[in-house]
């Protein structure tokens, strides 16, 4: 019974972790960008979604749609106002581009967080469940909304997998992550591919933010923690590896849930961090990372 409870409870939260992280890992894999404003973009989506639903009667679905759109806009702004200027700057040496992207997105993340504080206060908010109520799964009472969220996460992850593996566009993305130069030689504009990736990224981060707001609530104060969580999962799984990130999301999600159930809720985050340290010592490239 307890095992079943752990299994069910960990599933949805891990799926949500995974959804939050795959956009981040896709972004790194294809564009080589580690976006430390990631949590800020998720929070924007959640808060705008809540705001539209609560104050303008957009309803749970309308609010969610507006939230996702807000995430997409935030991603575009991040790309055009922060990332592109760094990448195109002649004064920044190529080998130091990474630290500049990190610093600039760090600053941008702070600006997003403080701006949200200013406009919406840092109160945690939650979006209304899309479908309220609970059902009993083999004796474990589970909110329907939680099931919906897990399903949405997996459908989106599945769609992304299909997109990457089955479509022409997906092949281009995959190819760009393996060898961008070759793709250029085959006549594909990388700038267009990067735009596609930022679009996918914005939609994924927006959706993850909205689902997060609907499942456990978001606050601008969470922005840093959400970035750190995505960063952790993505590195644990191996930078740029989408399946790795999903596995890592489940490792972290279940490590936390099991700790909360079997050891103590106060120690919740620690085992996942220890797993991370051990994995990186033994496998510096992460679970499924390429060296």
């Amino acid at each position, binding site marked *: 019974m307890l095992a079943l409870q752990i299994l069910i409870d960990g599933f949805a939260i891990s799926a949500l972790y995974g959804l939050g992280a795959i956009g981040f890992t896709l972004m790194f894999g294809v564009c080589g960008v580690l976006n430390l404003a990631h949590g800020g973009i998720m929070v924007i989506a959640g808060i705008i979604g809540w705001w539209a639903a609560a104050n303008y009667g957009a309803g749970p679905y309308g609010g969610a749609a507006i939230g996702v759109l807000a995430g997409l806009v935030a991603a575009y702004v991040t790309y055009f106002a*922060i990332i592109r200027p760094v990448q195109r700057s002649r*004064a920044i040496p190529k080998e130091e581009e990474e630290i500049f992207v990190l610093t600039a997105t760090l600053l941008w993340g702070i600006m997003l967080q403080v701006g949200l504080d200013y406009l919406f206060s840092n109160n945690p908010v939650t979006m209304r469940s899309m479908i309220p109520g609970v059902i009993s799964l083999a004796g474990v009472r589970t909110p329907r909304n939680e099931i919906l969220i897990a399903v949405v996460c997996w459908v989106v992850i599945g769609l992304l997998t299909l997109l990457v593996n089955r479509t022409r566009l997906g092949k281009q993305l995959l190819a760009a992550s393996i060898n961008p130069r070759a793709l250029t030689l085959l006549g594909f504009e990388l700038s267009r591919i990067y735009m596609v990736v930022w679009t996918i990224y914005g939609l994924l981060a927006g959706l993850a933010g909205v689902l997060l707001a609907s499942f456990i609530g978001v606050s601008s104060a969470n922005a840093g923690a959400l970035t750190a969580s995505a960063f952790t999962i993505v590195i644990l799984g191996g930078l740029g590896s989408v399946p790795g990130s999903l596995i890592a999301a489940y490792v972290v999600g279940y490590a936390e849930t099991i700790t909360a159930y079997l050891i103590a809720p106060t120690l919740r985050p620690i085992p996942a961090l220890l797993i991370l340290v051990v994995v990186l010592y033994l496998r510096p490239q992460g679970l499924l990372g390429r060296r």
Partner: protein
Amino acid sequence: MLRSPLFWLLVPTLLLGATAPWWLGAYYLGIFTTAYYFGVFSMSWDLLFGYAGEVNFGPTFLIGLGAYGAGLLNNAGWPIPLCLAGGSIIAVIGGVALALPALRLRGPYFGLITLVAVLLLIDCIVIFAGVTGGEIGMMVPDVLSISATVNYWYAFGFLVVCGTILFILSRSSLGLILQATGQDRIEAAALGFNVTKHKLAAFCISALFSGLAGGMLVFYQGTASVDTVVDLSITVQIIIAVVFGGRRTILGGVLGSIFLILFDELLRPLGQLNTFVVSGIALLVVLLLPDGVLGYVLRPRASR
């Protein structure tokens, strides 16, 4: 030396700093006092980042060890100087612990390990709240002084001493070798330098000064808390200070720290938006002057 632009910048700045208590109010002295300790944090970080080439997301791991080490020893009845020494030793041990993954991991992977070190330290502090005071922090029985002026002198003196030592180190043989290892460890090894040994040394030096400054900050503020010495926001501030002021300049970090803290205060009338504006300015500097303010002023001319 007389031909160095740095010299002509430093002399008036030092003069201004040394005479500050005669023309600045206690409040501004307080701001500068904090900024000076942050300046030492930033310089220590720059030694690792700008010279040894290691992106360390965990400076507050070292600072926090030094701060809490010193605070705990003070609560055990030790006098302040011994506490500072003890705290720094603990920080250096932490530095060695951070250096070990640094020798194995690259780029973001190493960065994450340092980040995790900070998160684990925070969790430990909260879990062992009985000893550390947990999230609300730990009071220390002794403080350096309760006079703003005296505290300013301590901080200024500390900054000048640390700044001098770190600056000399950065320009010394060690600094040269560190830069070589940071730039290309294979080439450095081919020149006969034991890369491991020098990286380890860089981590120890960085940890020593970070821990010492962390301890000083505790005895200035009278408390050690996660929020004031370990939190990731402090890491963010340190990184931004260094990139803003100019990486690989050591002294740029001090400039950046003073800018961040002073402007955050000067813009206090903007209320909540002060951090927004300061971050925005820093972002512009990062995008437009990638070498940082001091790096821009001191940049080598293409021809002479």
